[in-house]
């Protein structure tokens, strides 16, 4: 009985280690192939495909990311104000929203939205290509599936996620301004001046560094789930669920790691 528990624990651990290993190897391949997707120096078909992906991952996601950021900005301002008002420190809501969004909520909200929209789409697309033997067909045509399918998505996400994050920051902070305007009649220009005062370049940059890491996680996990599909259409369905669950999990894990690093190295 004990051995079976130990065996099962060991087996499960090995599978996780194997998964992370596969993820790291795929990332290595993808980084190697990234150059081929660049304009001018790379293959123009890959660049064209990357542009298509930028539209799908970025432009199409913008309305959703914007609405999420506006709602969250508003929520954060309201929750903050209800507490801070008791100390007569309602103006600190501006700091709360600005710092909260640039450091944390902007990148995280964007990553979660993109993971739900595009991480699942990546795994579904690649998974169904595995099931219909299209990936095998690519390989028999001497075309590397990682370069052909994954690399353009990777490049697109690396470019688009920081852009979405900046827009998400802007939307969230503006929503905070709207709240201040409604609750304390503070003019938007005054609000924005205070925002500029409390916004620090370091916060914005660390947020963007996070968003690049999140983009990597979403693409690698989403695509790996697709490539690992075995069997029929039901396996494709399971892979999309697992892509969203795993990428969200890894995004939050990475976020915790990054925040700890920035906290420890931040000084003040």
């Amino acid at each position: 009985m004990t051995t079976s528990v130990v065996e099962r624990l060991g087996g499960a651990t090995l599978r996780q280690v194997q998964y992370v290993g596969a993820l790291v190897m795929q990332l290595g391949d993808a980084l190697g192939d990234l150059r081929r997707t660049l304009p001018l120096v790379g293959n123009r078909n890959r660049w064209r495909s990357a542009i298509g992906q930028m539209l799908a991952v970025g432009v199409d996601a913008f309305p959703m990311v914007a609405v999420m950021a506006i709602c969250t900005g508003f929520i954060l301002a309201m929750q903050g104000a209800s507490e801070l008002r008791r100390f007569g420190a309602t103006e600190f809501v501006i700091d709360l929203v600005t710092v909260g969004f640039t450091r944390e909520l902007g990148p995280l909200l964007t990553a979660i939205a993109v993971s739900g929209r595009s991480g699942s789409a990546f795994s579904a697309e690649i998974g169904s290509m595995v099931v219909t033997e299209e990936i095998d067909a690519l390989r028999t045509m001497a075309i590397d599936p990682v370069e052909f399918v994954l690399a353009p998505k990777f490049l697109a996400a690396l470019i688009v996620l920081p852009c979405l994050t900046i827009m998400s920051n802007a939307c969230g902070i503006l929503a905070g301004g709207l709240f201040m305007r409604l609750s304390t009649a503070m003019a938007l220009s005054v609000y924005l001046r205070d925002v500029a005062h409390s916004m620090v370049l370091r916060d914005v940059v660390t947020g963007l560094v996070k968003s690049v890491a999140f983009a990597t996680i979403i693409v690698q996990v989403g695509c790996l789930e697709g490539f690992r599909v075995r069997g029929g259409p039901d396996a494709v369905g399971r892979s999309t669920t697992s892509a969203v669950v795993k990428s969200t999990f890894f995004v939050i894990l990475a976020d915790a790691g990054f925040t700890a690093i920035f906290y420890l190295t931040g000084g003040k």
Partner: protein
Amino acid sequence: MAGTPEAPTTGPAISVRDVVVSYDGRRVLDGINLDIAHGETMVLLGGSGSGKSTLLRQMIGLEHPQSGQILVNGIDLAKSSEKDLKKVRRSIGVAFQNAALFNSMSVEDNVALALREHTHLAESTIRLMTWMKLAVVGLGEFGKISPQALSGGMKKRAAVARALSLDPEILVFDEPSAGLDPIVAAELDELILALKRAFNMTVVVVTHEMASAFRIADRMAMLYKGKLIAVGTKEELQHNPHPRIRQFFDRVPDQIADSAAVDQYFERYLEGSAT
């Protein structure tokens, strides 16, 4: 144009030597030895689960054996460098069972893909070559449409056009007649024969359709439970006394002994109810 048989004619086109493949401890291929000569049409026969599709995947380098070798034009697929492997792959055209056309591209772009990836030809040349490949399989006018709009037989023919795109020496078909009505399946057989005549290619076909096998094969190889139980010409296999081959050729189900018992049971049951 295609299939330059003069090039490396020394030795077989594909040579399978002592190949063993297991999945999860189950032997799927058990010591397979098979040589396929240049310009020959080899049909791999076998029932479901006999290992014929696995053998095919080995021959086209999608998987590598646990032991043994697969040599294509003398190059060991498992040991060759990435560059050599790519070269070998470009000399093999594969038409997959479900056609495996890229649904995100038009039929024309499917056929042109390998040319765009591996050659520096001008777009106008690629278009012309693509049209020629499609015309060979009788789909000259269907280049612009999406693969989803094609019928089953047309999809398979488009897949053949794509397999031909780099003028391969070896053409591989996985279950060409699966899912097709007899007339369309026969048309596809004719296409395979015509291609072979025109380009003198080495053709490997995996199938369990006896009619199709007899029409196209120069030689046949019969797989049963991961072992090669016979290799030979159509006539040799037809007269082979091996019980499994006889069973396969005569379409006899496996549970023949049991079905006799079932008959007996019913006879007794009917007798019992009569009295």
